[in-house]
């Protein structure tokens, strides 16, 4: 692997473009750096010296057995879980470990949860409105008004996720699949630089899965996307580069074909 070359610390300071601290710097094409990240719970190592790099604009699939640490990885990136060791950088300069969840989200890393979590007492529309990219301070929120442009944006997303009819409905009464869609919609509203998508197609019909795949494909380039899924058909349909996680560290990385034929992957994950 070409890890040493990519290691952020191996880059001499003067080579780097001077950037304002806190501003995203993707001059090295890499948008997310995870290096030697370890997380343990009561002695159980959920992540074990994991290193992973996501390129700017890439669509990356992350697969691996149940419990391999995929969700935990996302927890680490979004600030929900603090790793025991290792470093996590957003671009060249932003140390995510020093930031809390809102700061990370504001910096442009957004996430869809494995278990769909939407605001059950708000309407579908309001769910999207809250997610919308905007100043998220308390004071601006007090005086924020929805303008036409905003509405159009929300309508657009509603159409994309097929919930236009349910716009005024409380999110709590949506079915499981509808909630999945709504959460994808919320992700879209945030217009993030990095999207972390945890099992987006669970509970969807075949056709919906295809639509999701299309959607994700259309987003790549504009956004860097990390998708976790167990549905191999879906993964195959979107994957450029696939990373396989196993027991908290990267087992292998490569194209779908490479991965599928990797005997270790077959053994721990795919089966014969």
């Amino acid at each position, binding site marked *: 692997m070409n890890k040493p070359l990519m290691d952020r610390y191996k880059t001499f300071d003067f080579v780097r473009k001077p950037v304002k601290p806190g501003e995203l710097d993707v001059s090295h094409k890499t948008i997310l750096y995870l290096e030697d990240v370890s997380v343990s*719970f009561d002695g*159980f190592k959920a992540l074990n010296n994991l290193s992973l790099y996501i390129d700017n604009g890439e669509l990356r699939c992350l697969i*691996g*057995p*149940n*419990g*391999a*640490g*995929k*969700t935990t990885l996302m927890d680490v990136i979004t600030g929900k879980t603090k790793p025991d060791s290792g470093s996590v950088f957003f671009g060249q300069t932003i140390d995510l470990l020093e930031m809390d969840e809102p700061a990370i989200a504001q910096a442009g890393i957004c996430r869809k949860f*494995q*278990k769909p979590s939407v605001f059950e007492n708000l309407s579908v529309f309001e769910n999207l409105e809250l997610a919308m990219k905007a100043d998220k301070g308390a004071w601006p929120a007090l005086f924020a008004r929805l303008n036409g442009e905003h509405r159009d944006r929300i309508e657009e997303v509603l159409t994309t996720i*097929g919930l236009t009819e349910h716009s005024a409905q409380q999110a709590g*009464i*949506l*079915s*499981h*699949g*509808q909630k999945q*869609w709504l959460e994808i919609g919320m992700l879209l509203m945030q217009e993030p630089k990095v999207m972390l998508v945890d*099992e987006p197609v*669970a*509970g*969807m*019909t*075949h*056709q*919906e899965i295809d*639509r999701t795949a299309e959607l994700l494909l259309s987003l790549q380039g504009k956004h860097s996307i990390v998708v976790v899924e*167990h*549905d*191999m058909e879906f993964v195959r349909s979107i994957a450029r580069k696939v990373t396989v996680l196993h027991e908290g560290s990267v087992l292998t990385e490569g194209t779908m074909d490479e991965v599928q034929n990797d005997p270790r992957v*077959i053994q*721990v*994950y*795919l*089966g*014969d």
Partner: protein
Amino acid sequence: MLNINSLNQYYRESHTLWDLQLSVPEGGCVCLMGRNGVGKTTLLKCIMGLIPVRSGEMLFDGVDLAPLKSEQRAELGIGFVPQGREIFPLLTVEENLKIGLRAARRHGIKKVPEHIFEIFPVLKQMLGRRGGDLSGGQQQQLAIGRALVLNPRLLILDEPTEGIQPNIVSEIGDVIIRLNKAKGIKTPLVKEAAEVKNEVREAIKIINREMGVTVLLVEQKLPFARKVADRFCILERGRSVASGGMDELDETKVKRYLTV
């Protein structure tokens, strides 16, 4: 084994299930299909008695379910694996499994049957961990295992493949062989199992065939459904619009009812 006739259900004012018909033959495996939000989960919850129905009849082995409470339905031998897993998050895996023992007592089951750990070995490794800490897939396995503790005669599964890794097959294969032998049945399942890629699918099949459990399944993924189930039933906007043997599920029906 399960017969549902003209079932109507409302969420407050909104009519969700309309004159629904469904029958699950003894020993069969029926797959309930339909787009998002048509009422599949709702129907299963009605059968479990978790939400009230407005009218209609539900017979389980000729017993009317209507007057029975959820827990009594469980005791009759209906096992439920809900959508979203619904693990008891702060109970350990072991405790989660033990929960079913009360209803299983009537079958003389006093401790968590070993075969569950054979089907889902990961549960054995994680016995002491809190259910809520498990990964999504592990939780799903726990949910199925938990339902099996009841020694159910009818197993209801709501999208059980959701979030499960595509292998576990090889491991389970061995388990099944041993299960079979214990039961004195010599079905050459090993080979078949080796052929199948999806192990949960296989597990369900095995549970269905070997333990004589009838299965009612909600599944979106067509290939899986085809593989596992012998009958299907399609819902649309709360109505049952098509049903029959799995082989009768042709492209037109799929186009008409399942695509968006």
